């Protein structure tokens, strides 16, 4: 399994500073949950690999060639034998990364809607300023064109989260996040399906983790919109989250 990136200076003997940077990058793991994403996951992995050596794709019981495409692109591929949902896939990736010594974990959707350039902006508050978590927000940038129906649903999600979990964020279901090792070890993630996004915010509030929201780009394409959640799923997500929360408390 290759954990090194192909940088221009790979053949040169690294000096102290670049070796330190390489060590830091070795502790950074990007987790990409993917379910039937063979059309997009290869490109996503290749782009991330240019910046981060450790890319873990969790193939969540795909029936297409997602796992093979991700592996060919250079990712470490964990395979769920049956589909268990995005929350379950993220947790699998996190457990694996923590066991491999991850110091910072980034979550990144496999449908190509995130911008690889945002990874560093998310990692910086955790690595440089001691935050436990950095949360991507599509609403902190003016140039993101969020479809109106989705925008309204997400804003309702923001309100719901504010009332139920008592955490003030501007975006609730953004798959781009970064966690310190300490935070990732403490998060209790029981929601297998889409309610995991609300659960993560709830956990951040419960554990009183230090977090920062980071403006991130979102690149909606017909493909990512088709693969994304329908707004009608919001009620189901809220129900799953509330039942899970009541049981947890």
């Amino acid at each position, binding site marked *: *399994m290759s954990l090194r990136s192909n940088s221009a200076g790979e053949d040169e003997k690294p000096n102290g500073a670049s070796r330190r940077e390489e060590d830091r990058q070795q502790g950074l793991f990007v987790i990409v949950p993917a379910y039937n994403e063979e059309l997009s996951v290869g490109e996503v992995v290749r782009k991330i690999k240019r910046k981060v050596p450790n890319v873990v794709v969790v193939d969540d*019981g795909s029936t297409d060639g997602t796992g093979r495409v991700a592996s060919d692109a250079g990712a470490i591929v*964990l395979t*769920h034998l049956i589909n268990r949902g995005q929350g379950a896939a993220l947790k*699998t990736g996190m457990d*694996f990364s923590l066991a491999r010594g991850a110091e910072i974990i980034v979550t990144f959707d496999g449908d190509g809607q995130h911008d690889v350039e945002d990874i560093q902006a998310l990692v910086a508050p955790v690595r440089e300023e001691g935050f436990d978590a950095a949360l991507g927000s599509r609403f902190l940038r003016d140039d993101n064109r969020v479809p109106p129906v989705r925008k309204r649903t997400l804003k309702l999600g923001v309100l719901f989260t504010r009332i139920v979990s008592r955490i003030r964020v501007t975006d609730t279901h953004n798959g781009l996040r970064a966690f310190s090792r300490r935070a990732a070890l403490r998060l209790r993630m029981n929601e297998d399906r889409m309610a995991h996004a609300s659960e993560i915010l709830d956990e951040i509030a419960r554990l009183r983790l230090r977090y920062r929201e980071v403006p991130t780009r979102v690149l909606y394409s017909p493909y990512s919109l088709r693969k994304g959640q329908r707004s009608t799923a919001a009620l189901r997500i809220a129900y799953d989250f509330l039942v899970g929360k009541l*049981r947890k408390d």
Partner: protein
Amino acid sequence: MLPIQVIIVLFALFTLTRVVRRFHEREISLGGFLAWTAFWTGVGVLVLAPVATKWLARLLGVGRGADAVFYVTLVALCYFCFRLQLKTRDLEHQITQLVRRLAIERMSDR
């Protein structure tokens, strides 16, 4: 006695024998045994003495005995559905843990 009363009482008695057997085989807890016994005994009593439903109706503030039985049954069914859903959630979670463990172990073995 009406034929429907005979059928329901026989069914209740049959179910009670199953409840007792399951309890002896330790497949249900003491709490489950008592709850199910009370439930099926109640069904038998209400069918044999429908007048008892009037007492239930008065207690609940509902007009007719049959209505009272209907409302109580509805609430009980909703509760059982909810219990079943929680049980399914637990099972789903256990399946996920199994799938996760397999995924990580298979990767680590490579």
